């Protein structure tokens, strides 16, 4: 049953990806990308990675779709049509894809308890979460306590990203117009 769900969801992902590639209408592509994220979130739930699924649904399907739509209002709705097909980028993509698939051959099976990543320090974290921290959600224990440094860094990264965007886009249109720094609007 789980395999069937995975196959169906993965098939949906493939179809959505091809649809995004083929459509020239950017609004359609944006909405499909949102759907792609939502399907990924469902796939992650099926893999028992609910924390990641949460994030994917809220950020991927929600916020980034809205940001893309906001960008679309500033640009055209249609992609420029390019007729010429170039071989070199196509071959690079194909070779990279083939290498990545080849790389997965060596990877341990999904959920394999003997996987190297689960042998190193994970048993300590699991035992420590049970005995020392005593909270049921090991993910939270690892994120906030064992890997507190990393999470502090990630929070700082998010803060920095916000600062960067605000420095670039923080001034509102009206303020720009008052200052006279904004060029008159072109009608697309």
């Amino acid at each position, binding site marked *: 049953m789980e395999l069937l769900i995975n196959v169906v969801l993965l098939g949906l992902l493939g179809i959505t990806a091809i649809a995004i590639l083929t459509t020239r209408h950017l*609004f359609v592509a944006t909405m499909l990308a949102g759907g792609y994220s939502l399907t990924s979130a469902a796939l992650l739930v099926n893999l028992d990675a*609910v*924390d990641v699924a*949460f*994030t994917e649904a*809220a*950020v991927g399907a*929600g*916020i980034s779709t*809205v*940001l893309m739509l*906001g*960008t679309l*209002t*500033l640009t055209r709705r249609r992609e420029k049509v390019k007729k010429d097909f170039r071989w070199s980028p196509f071959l690079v993509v194909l070779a990279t894809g083939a290498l990545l698939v080849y790389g997965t051959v060596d990877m341990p099976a999904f959920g394999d308890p003997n996987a190297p990543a689960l042998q190193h320090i994970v048993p300590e974290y699991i035992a420590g979460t049970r005995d*020392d*921290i*005593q*909270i*049921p*959600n090991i*993910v*939270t*224990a690892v*994120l*906030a*306590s064992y890997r*507190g*440094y990393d*999470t*502090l860094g*990630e*929070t*700082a990264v*998010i*803060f920095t*990203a*916000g600062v960067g*965007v*605000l420095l670039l*886009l*923080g*001034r*509102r*249109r009206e303020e720009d117009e008052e200052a006279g720094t904004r060029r008159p609007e072109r009608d697309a």
Partner: protein
Amino acid sequence: MRHHLVLRVVSKILIPFIILYGLYVQFHGDFSPGGGFQAGVIVAAAIILYALIFGIERARQVFKPEVLLVFAPLGVMIFALVGYAALALGGNYLDYDWLVANDTAGQHIGIITVEFGVGLTVAAVMTLIFLAYAGRTRDIDDEDW
């Protein structure tokens, strides 16, 4: 989209529950999937929904950018200060064992505090980024869709 009655009514009902769910994900993160980051984006999504339906200007009045600009660094500072608190009380940086006498209680307090900091920063930054983007465009007319 102010005159879309159905959207307005439905989102008016939904938004409080989305925010409540965000708070649940935030403070129940020790016991169930979730945590500060997820809670932050869920709350930000609720605010963005509000802004989409009721207009950017009204959203700016309710969720003032000046206040959000304080919240964003405040979250990082809460996280960092918990680390310094552990340092001051004799432990290593971010070693929550030292926050109170009982190690496990210290871990609980430390985790819930830093997760709150993460949630605060994420919610504030996501909302600020959205408001910055949205401030570049005028409200979208219905024909544009």
